[in-house]
């Protein structure tokens, strides 16, 4: 069998992919049922959230329960840029304005990841979890009290820019970034910290720097997701960023398998579709969801993929059947 895609230089693959994505968005997307489109877009946003949280919780072994806070920071920063600075750029630069907004969102979220990471990453285990949970809530309450960001009524009039193209471009970039990061010296440092922080430090890994780094990167992508989210709904309210949202992302990561990027992707898609699929039994939906969660934790705590990635699994199956 041919080596196919892998023999082409990455740049070519990327350009081809982007063009294909753009064409899909331009010509196929309008034909798609809007309900399905909504699921596709929200799935994509959740994939970015899950993969970025996986970097912190799965690959680096830190216990972050405040990811929704970073999403909020990014979402609101991006929205604020679009609403307050966007008009100055005019309609012809609308796309550029959107990209800038997303970058601003990711950037501000990254800074918040740094500011929060430095003090909290001294803590271990449960204390770290509690601290991140607390920070997530504090961010939410702070935003809630800022009238310039909509306050209790929510932030409205965010321009609609998010579409299939941008979301899946972000997904591709996010997944590639994380996959390449993990399969590098820096990724190995993170995994070593996860496995045994003391030993990692003894082997020359500056653990604090890397832990904070994973926080910053994870926060940046969460912020990107937030920016996409805000420009999709055209409206933001802090109710979307409570600790429940943080838990939902954590559940995606655990369900997929902590440390497995493919797992996070699969779980994000599954858990975006599931609430919709259960719409028929609306009253029992949450009860079923929580029961499934409990059963899963008891029966298969390592999640679907464990720490393995889909390509590795496929390779070992192929070898076994050969």
């Amino acid at each position, binding site marked *: 069998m041919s080596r196919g895609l892998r023999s082409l230089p990455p740049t070519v693959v990327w350009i081809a992919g982007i063009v294909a994505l753009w064409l899909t968005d331009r010509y196929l997307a309008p034909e798609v049922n809007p309900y399905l489109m909504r699921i596709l877009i929200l799935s994509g946003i959740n994939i970015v959230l899950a993969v970025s949280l996986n970097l912190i919780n799965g690959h680096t072994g830190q216990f972050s329960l405040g990811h929704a806070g970073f999403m909020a920071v990014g979402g609101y920063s991006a929205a604020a840029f679009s609403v307050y600075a966007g008009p100055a750029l005019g309609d012809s630069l609308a796309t550029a304005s959107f990209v800038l907004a997303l970058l601003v969102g990711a950037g501000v979220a990254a800074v918040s990841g740094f500011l929060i990471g430095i003090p909290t990453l001294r803590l271990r285990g449960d204390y770290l979890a509690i601290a991140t949970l607390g920070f997530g809530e504090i961010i939410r309450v702070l935003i809630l009290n800022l009238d310039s960001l909509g306050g209790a009524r929510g932030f409205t009039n965010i321009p609609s820019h998010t579409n299939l193209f941008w979301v899946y471009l972000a997904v591709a970039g996010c997944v590639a970034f994380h996959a390449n990061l993990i399969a590098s010296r820096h990724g190995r440092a993170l*995994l070593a910290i996860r496995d*045994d922080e003391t030993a990692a430090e*003894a082997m*020359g890994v500056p653990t604090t720097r890397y832990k904070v780094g994973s926080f910053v990167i994870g926060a940046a992508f969460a912020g990107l997701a937030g920016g996409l989210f805000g420009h999709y709904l055209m409206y933001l309210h802090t109710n979307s960023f409570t600790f429940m949202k943080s838990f939902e992302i954590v559940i995606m990561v655990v369900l997929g398998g902590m440390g497995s990027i493919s797992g996070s992707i699969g779980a994000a898609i599954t858990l975006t579709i599931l609430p919709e699929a259960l719409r028929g039994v609306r009253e029992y939906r949450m009860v079923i969801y929580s029961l499934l969660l409990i059963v899963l934790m008891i029966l298969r705590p390592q999640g679907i993929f464990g720490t393995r990635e889909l390509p590795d699994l496929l390779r070992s199956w192929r070898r076994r059947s050969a």
Partner: protein
Amino acid sequence: MTGAALLSLEKVSIRFGGLKALADVDFALYPGELVGLIGPNGAGKTTVFNLVTGVYRPTSGRILFRSHPIAGRAPHAIAGLGISRTFQNVRLFPRMSVLDNVRVGFHREGRVGLFGSILRTPRFHDEETSLETRAYELLSIFSLDGFAGANATDLPYGHQRRLEIARALALSPSLLLLDEPAAGMNPHETEELMATIRRVRSRFDLTILLVEHDMRFVMGICERIVVLDHGAKIGEGAPAAVKADPKVIAAYLGEETTDAAS
């Protein structure tokens, strides 16, 4: 044994709460030496290791490496200065492969940054290839290269201990601290380990300080021995002299050792 000491502890003490774990410990290591650190359980041997590697900070006293004070510096910085170690209870990275365990030891040598790694520049590929090659070389010294892809914790215990030493060597240290390297090994494995340590010492130009309870091992391989008891140094010298030292004998008789057959 002339010239400046590579490592010296000067009146090093440390307290944990009300407990004084080490009291005014004084000794030095000279380049190229193979020194043993012995003493009954709880004497403070691993504490000495933890102080030298920066896990603990001494309450008083100085620790000098190449005449520079290192007490209280971060462990990863001390590792960068050329001090490497193994642990009493093997601390490998359990979910990483044998090869990756060693590659983590090369961390400080890597130069390619975040963006080079993400964008997969040619420099990145070159560095990865070079580090991988060197990792295999280290593994082959310990006859572990055949296990490179296996999970570290799937190895038999003796192999794991050897892997830990291989990983420590990836740091290209000048000083290697081995904490009970022969623990849990049968006599045959112990002999092999002694040969490996000697080989490694000359090949990599190392100074070695080791903690061990197996007296045959200690007497067989160490050129000099330092004895601790209840946090204080009670003896120092050539193996034969230390073995006959009444204070040392008394310290060990005060504790029931299972290693009496030596």
